[in-house]
């Protein structure tokens, strides 16, 4: 069972178990983690589950789609490591994944 690590803007870390096939967003949401709003429920349609992926993990995650890039374009503080966490599907390969939660969602 893959584990995911979330790091809040103040440095607080949270580690949760995830069922393979679920998204990073739903792990955060189901555990009531603040800072991931997920207003559209995981449809890549609101841009409120923005996270920064740890640079060591970037190479392990499937590239973003055009739809994801379009939604991310209107988020605040977007950089190369920015992803919508509803679009990252967890597998055993991603066991130990680290993602950083931004200051706020737009």
């Amino acid at each position: 069972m893959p584990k995911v690590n979330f790091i809040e803007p103040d440095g607080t870390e949270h580690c949760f178990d995830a069922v393979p096939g679920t998204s990073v967003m739903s792990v955060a949401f189901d555990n009531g983690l603040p800072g991931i709003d997920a207003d559209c429920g995981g449809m890549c349609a609101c841009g409120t589950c923005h996270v920064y992926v740890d640079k060591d993990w970037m190479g392990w995650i499937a590239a973003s789609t055009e739809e994801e890039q379009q939604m991310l374009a209107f988020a605040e503080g977007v950089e190369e490591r920015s992803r919508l966490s509803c679009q990252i599907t967890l597998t055993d390969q991603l066991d130990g994944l680290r993602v950083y939660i931004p200051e706020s969602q737009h």
Partner: protein
Amino acid sequence: MDNLTDVNSGERLPDPWTLPLATLDPSDGRLFQTGQHHDYFRRLRQEDPVHWSPTGPTGGYWSITKYHDIMAVDRNHKVFSSDKHIIIGDQPVDFLPTNFIAKDPPVHDVQRKAANPAVAPTRVRELEVIMRGRIGAVLDSLPVGEPFDWVDKVSIELTTQMLATLFDFPWEDRRLLPYWSDAVTSTELVGNSNLSEEAREKILMECLVYFQELWVQRAAEPPKFDFISLLAHNPDTKDMIQDPMDFLGNLILLIVGGNDTSRNSMSGGVYFLNRNPGEFAKLKQDPSLVPNMVSEIIRYQTPLAHMRRTALEDIEFGGKLIKRGDRVVMWYTSGNRDEEVIVDPDRFWIDRPNARQHLSFGFGIHRCMGNRVAEMQIRVLWEEFLKRFSDVTLVSEPRRVQSNFVLGYETMPVVLTKLEA
């Protein structure tokens, strides 16, 4: 059971279940004044969720009434275009202000990105400090123990102050903003006949002229975080003033977007809490429920009833064939009451689980840009209210707007009770 929260005086139209399904047209503005639109949409969700009405303000249109179908249309901007028209009726081609909500990528993206910093989270935190002081001052100025109009004294005043701040608009002239906004939304195209098209265009041209002067000033000054300054200094939008209809259109978008929406949620909250005293008691007991209540108010009110798209190609959707060129109306007000997605949807429930997952802001690339500003000002209003007052009581039924687009209130007489020290 009758939905008490939607009872209102006004001319009632036929019960939807007495009409042939094929003739059902939910676009009559009067339906939204009485709350009957909820019955019309309930029948459509049950019997014909993707529904063709041959009649409409400017011709036939599809009604999309279920939550997930609305989400699917909103996400698919490649087939369901926002080009030119985003309300149910077509605007006349000889007076067609354009703006980024009524455009597809790439122009949409460029203009939206230019205006976006004015309402981005970092800026919203600064605005909250400014607005908390102003909201407190407005609340402190209200009469206690005697009737007044909540719409005028609170909802319009606060949204106008917010808008004036976002535009850095001359403070003493700020009531021009809701005056222009109301002119924009008073049109036969959304089932309202308060203004002739000629009178409406005249008012909007006054708006254009006023802002042209403001633009020239801002362009000559160092860049700031107000909408006009952001647009005037961005290399991608600095020539917008050369195209008066594009400039006017974007002004209209930013003014209406920041006006009717928050205004009517500010009034709606008072109405819903009065109709649901148990929820009001819960709120007073636990003010930490305010943020969740704000989302529930925005769902329950759905201040903009619909957005419209135009199909760019034939597409099979919900078992129907939508043809290229057809008008496609996403009824957010219906999707927000979809029994299959929202638990007990007709209930106003301030601690509703997953209250944020409503359709009122839309989804996809046209999702409401100012949603964080809206949530912030409604939240601060209720936080500051609870520090000062123990009650706000409706004196009589509010008068509602006649429109299939703006779901709102013209007047709402109330009386305030001060919190016992």
